[in-house]
């Protein structure tokens, strides 16, 4: 009984020491240059997309299995009608569509009717559309906000990631070369 209580009272110390040790390791590796905490947001990089299955807006939605053997690279764009940066990004997506870059859209925490309305008035840059109304799939993808875009190669592996609106410069310097690289 007494040892159990002793362990209980020492638990905060143990937790603090463990956290301190962890922080020390992080700092040490930051100084060596082998670790960059700013790399954290590129979470799924070079991994397969997490499993999901989402309903569509007007027609059928899509699922992770659709991405596993798609054969060509595709951009997955999380967006929402309530998100001003998404509206800012929209013309860039439309321009990419004109360049025949395939984009699949996932409307995040949105109403299907609002999303459809948005695509009808502003233009639909997406090849396929799905909606993640409860935002569950977004958690698996580790979304930090909208818009957020992932480049998925022909086998369903995430190769590039951007949180925040895509700019024409990014399309030219990053997306286009990657599409070429992974395009079969």
């Amino acid at each position, binding site marked *: 009984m007494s040892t159990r209580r002793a362990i209980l009272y020492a638990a905060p110390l143990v937790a*603090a020491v463990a956290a301190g040790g962890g922080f020390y390791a992080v700092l040490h590796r930051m100084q060596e240059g082998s670790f960059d905490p700013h790399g954290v947001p590129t979470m799924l*990089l070079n991994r397969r997309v997490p499993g999901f299955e989402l309903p569509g807006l007007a027609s059928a939605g899509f699922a992770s299995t659709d991405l596993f053997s798609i054969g060509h690279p595709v951009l997955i764009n999380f967006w929402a009608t309530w998100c001003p940066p998404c509206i800012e990004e929209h013309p860039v997506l439309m321009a990419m569509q004109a360049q025949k870059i395939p984009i699949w859209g996932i409307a995040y925490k949105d109403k299907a009717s609002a999303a459809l309305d948005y695509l009808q008035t502003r233009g639909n840059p997406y090849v396929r559309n799905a909606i993640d109304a409860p935002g569950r799939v977004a958690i698996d993808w580790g979304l930090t906000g909208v818009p957020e875009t992932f480049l998925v190669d022909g086998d369903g592996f995430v190769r590039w990631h951007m949180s925040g609106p895509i700019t024409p410069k990014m399309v030219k310097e990053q997306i286009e070369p990657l599409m070429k690289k992974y395009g079969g």
Partner: protein
Amino acid sequence: MNPEIGHFALALAVAFGFAQAIIPIWGAQRGDIRMMQAAPGLALGQLIALATAFGVLMWVSVDNDFSVLNVYENSHSLKPLLYKITGTWGNHEGSILLWCLIMGVCGGAVAVFGRNLPASLRARVIGVLGASSVGFTLFALLASNPFLRIWPPPANGQDMNPLLQDLGLAIHPPILYLGYVGFSIPFAFAVAALLEGRVDAAWGRWVRPWTLAAWCFLTGGIALGSWWAYYELGWGGFWFWDPVENASLMPWLTGTALLHAAIVVEKRESLKVWTVLLAIATFSFSLSGTFLVRSGILNSVHAFANDPTRGVFILVLLGLVIGGALALFAWRGRALSSVGLFAPISREGALVLNNVLLCSIAAVVAIGTLYPLFADMVLGQKLSVGAPFFNATVLPLAVPLFIAMAVGPMLSWKRAALGPALMRLWWAAVVAAAVGLWASFGTSLLPAFVLGCAAWLILGAFADIMARIRLFRIPLLSSLLLLRGTPRGALGAAIAHAGLGVTIAGIAGMSMAVSTILLVKPGETVHLAGYDWKLMGLHDAPGPNYTARVATIQVSRNGRLVTVLAPERRSFPVQQMTTTEAKIETDGFRDLYAVLGDERDGGAVLRLHDNFMAPWIWLGALVMALGGGLSLSDRRLRLGAPRRAAKAPHAGAPA
């Protein structure tokens, strides 16, 4: 003035800190009255030394002494005087010195206001404060010295990050630090209690006002920071679950829990060990939050220049302060344990529920903030945790808290019945449900539900006061007389609870906000949220150290002019940086918010928001802080320094 005077004063503060850490504690252990009585003098000496150092730093900044590296790096002769003053703490070195100064203020406050504490307790509290502050003053002197010189002195400085040249942000750090560092006093009381080996009702009563004062400042500081993000960053949001924001939220959550747990210690002599642990944890979160931001481990828009070398210094410092306190807790904590039997339905039961929920939220926030870092390092797994995670995990814990918050204050100590409490609240529940139902027609279910919770909290607080003064059950005049006699602590608590209701009403309202981004040509009108936003024109305007591009937007409703908004884009030539100045017009219930974006094709990109209820977010925080302030003015807390019952060592004559 000579910066070396400041340098010397800083070194002197370190010396005072060492003396303050060693002499009183040693005296208290030996029972030496003279050594214990040295404590207040040493604390005041350290305060004077730090105030001198800080004053000198402020002076050299105002005086444009660019031979001082810190001034050269962060100032410019054209910078407005106000920002030369506030810029003193707008950089890493200066803010560490401010942190030290506030630690000195805490020591001085205990020295001045703690006259009625038992001499040994006061000596130990001041000693522990000295031991913590010696670490930070040493860090300032050795690793972040703001008084270093450069030779030859450059002609002009590099100026300060334009984002930081803002009044709201200028007053934000001192208030936030008063909150962060203010929790060093409950921490010192906790460590002193572990050294003394006793915690009693009197201890609980001493700790409460200090905790409350720190809590008020932290509440105000967090609200100011969020307000700054709202209007200066121009993203239209108010809380981003950014690591820096989370780092300030965690001590607020555990500090709120501490505030409530200390009541149980005072009234029921129970939860002692837990309260001591919370006091240690709250200050530890304050410290580690600062550390995580400064070392560059967590990245954020708010961060200062990162330097891992400094990070190691701070980490060792934190290890000594936090690790030392927790080791003492592991060793001596059991001596404080109390046997308390709790009825689940009672005031103390409600306070335990409050603690469980608040600490669960704190744990969730801590895990969400730190897990990506450790997952990356230990498991090699890259992942990020963002707003979706926090929204999904915090809300289910917060809702029971909101619901219980209105009931808790109605319950009596020891054993209560839920029935009578709910009887006094039924009308609040009905109105809250009606509010929720009404809101659900205009918006989705969740914001409507939260809005209902907000109404429940505000009305519940009102019902609490109503029951106390027996409003409508006895003549109005007698009720008002009862109101005068109601302890300010109870009034303050009700006001603070209602303040949280106001804040969450604002948060729920904000989720109904509408906005748009459009390319608008001068003369064109945008229709949004029932308002007509007409872009009148664009022009250039000079500023002291920037040039601005200003858009004039006339906002009218049904043909009647409501307001004219003039959002700006400012370019700072020295730093080659542009900031957006959002312009906000508020009527108390909604913010009309306009941001000027890029210009192209003869027009300008405008971002327009109609933020419903947004001002309530910060109004609520203000109400919370004011409620805390009213509580602080309670007679019981001012005079309430009870003599320790029996066996108190009569070590020192009460001053």
